[in-house]
């Protein structure tokens, strides 16, 4: 297994289209790292650069300390699982899995042993003589994983491998891949646009936007301490609520956005961090999970009193997502989560508060996190 280092990695198409703008990421040995971001952010490009399927325009790609920029894919000792499985349609499952080993001239007995072991591991033993078209999507993806597995590569690469599966199968395969990682203790790099997948699978998540790495951190750190507004909005479902307003200095430091106005508490040195932004545009962010009904919540210290009107509620069984607006700001909708014990009606007025330790502020211009 291996460490992978991306040092100022760049990708430029046609001399002026910059797809990756200097990525610096270190992926440690045995780590499961997820590259996540919206469509077109460059996550797949970055993975393909690691695989050797895209030329690297600048920077260094190191696998186990060796610079591999100019090595062909087959010489990088990596294996990749594709979104569309990419199984060879004219070969049986056995032949598909054995192909890479045959090309590397492994002895027949070892090929057979490795394929059978991987097939047993993935529950494919009875399908070894089938062709891909005779199998379901989930089984095909298992074969694709098996093909990577038998090679015992330094690094496993996954390019949105679950996108073509239905929701139930996706959850099942997610768990299987995670289990695979725990058992193999291999370095894995996984690309997805689905932040739930990223949060549930990754030891470390790399968030990308427009070819720029926004933040590299553990899932919970990304959720609780996003480095900018984009990460805050991208990670979490439903996403973080944002209110654009300004910081004002009256008797006390205040955040004002339309009819919403509240004094900045002194927790987490908020006042100190926000005082340089007096008179400047600031975005206030709060997660639906950290907004509470004041009439029922007693455990959490709530800072801000806000009066909201419920527009729509979406009960999903164990909990409900309530979409609301602030008084006088009917055109902007926000979300808060409630337990299924509290059932709200459309048009109901509720007094809510936000967990005092979960108030987040972002620079209105640069979108960087202030506090």
């Amino acid at each position: 297994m291996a460490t992978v280092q991306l040092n100022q990695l760049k990708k430029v198409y046609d001399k002026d289209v910059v797809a990756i703008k200097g990525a610096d990421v270190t992926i440690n040995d045995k780590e499961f790292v997820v590259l996540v971001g919206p469509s077109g952010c460059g996550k797949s490009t970055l993975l393909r650069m690691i695989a050797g399927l895209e030329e690297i325009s600048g920077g260094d790609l190191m696998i186990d300390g060796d610079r591999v920029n100019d090595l062909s894919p087959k010489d990088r000792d990596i294996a990749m699982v594709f979104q569309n499985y990419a199984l060879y349609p004219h070969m049986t499952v056995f032949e598909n899995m054995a192909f890479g080993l045959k090309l590397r001239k492994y002895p027949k007995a070892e090929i057979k042993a490795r394929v059978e072991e991987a097939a047993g591991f993935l529950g494919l033993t009875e399908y070894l003589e089938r062709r891909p078209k005779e199998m379901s999507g989930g089984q095909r993806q298992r074969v694709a994983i098996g093909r990577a597995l038998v090679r015992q590569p330094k690094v496993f690469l996954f390019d949105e491998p679950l996108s073509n599966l239905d929701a139930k199968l996706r959850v099942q395969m997610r768990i299987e891949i995670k289990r695979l990682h725990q058992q193999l203790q291999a370095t894995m790099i996984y690309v997805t646009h689905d932040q739930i997948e990223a949060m549930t699978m990754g030891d470390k998540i790399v968030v990308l936007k427009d070819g720029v790495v926004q933040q590299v951190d553990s899932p919970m750190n990304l959720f609780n301490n996003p480095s900018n507004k984009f990460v805050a909005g991208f990670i979490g479902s439903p996403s973080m609520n944002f209110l654009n307003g300004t910081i004002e200095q009256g008797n006390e430091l205040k955040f004002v956005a339309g009819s919403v106005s509240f004094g900045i508490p002194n927790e987490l040195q908020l006042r100190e961090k926000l005082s340089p932004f007096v008179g400047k545009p600031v975005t206030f962010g709060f997660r639906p999970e950290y907004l509470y009904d004041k009439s029922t919540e007693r455990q959490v210290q709530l800072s801000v009193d806000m009066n909201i009107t419920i527009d729509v509620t979406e009960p999903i069984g164990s909990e409900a997502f309530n979409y609301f607006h602030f008084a006088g700001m009917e055109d902007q909708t926000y979300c808060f989560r409630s337990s299924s014990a509290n059932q709200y009606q459309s048009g109901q007025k509720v007094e809510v508060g936000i967990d005092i330790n979960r108030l987040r502020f972002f620079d209105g211009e640069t979108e960087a996190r202030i506090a």
Partner: protein
Amino acid sequence: MSHPRPTKSDRAMKNLKLQKLLFYGLLFVMTAIYLGPFLFSLSISFNAEQDVFSWPIKLLPEEWTLDNYQRVWQDLPFGTWLLNSVTITVIQTICNVFFASLAGFAFARLDFPGKNIIFSLLLASLMIPGIVLLVPKFIILNEFHLINTYGGLILPGLVSVVNIFLMKQFFETIPKDLEEAALIDGCSYFRIFWQIFLPVSKPALAAVAIYTFQGSWNEFMWPVIVTTTRDMFTLPVGMAFLKNEFSVQWPLLMAGTILISLPTIAIFLIFQRYFVQGVASAGLKE
């Protein structure tokens, strides 16, 4: 007695029947136009009489015989012509399948300088009518002393732009992931072509093979120009020489023609499934 008024669905049914009748009628006429002459030649080939066009024309012979088929083999150098035709067709078919798929792969999957220009030039060459090229081709081959040789007969038909185009289009429909998976597995580009792309392209290869076989087997113009002695004739040329100024031996000619068309029919029947698949999938994305 009053009849019940036909309902709307009755009328629709009647219309449908009428449409079907028209459709099948049209199909029958078209089939007759295509199949009629062939069946008539088949009938003539079994006719014992030589004067098959004496009035009134008989669609079926009064006296049936296999004599004409025997005479084709005995009186004519049919065996030599058959060998010539088979040699030329087999070599041209194999070479066309190989070169068209190789070039198609390069145009579809490889990046090299001038790729688009070269491909445009190839396509542009399709705009030139083949007949215009006959004389230049003849002159070139004459310079190489290839007139009336197998080389002269075979070389100009080894590669066809249409086939390259067909293979390129087909290869472009194969998902890029497959090629990339093979690259990561350790394939060279030639191995990707040979072990991945060719096996999954059977329908397109079959289409190219059938097109080429048929074209090469039936080719008349080029062999008639490039051959000067009877022993170098191909079957179509040999058959054409049965028609001389004063008389045509129709039953003999038809027996030969039927024999010539048998391989094409057999190959088409055997590979029909692939052929239709190939044509249908040539322009379709997966």
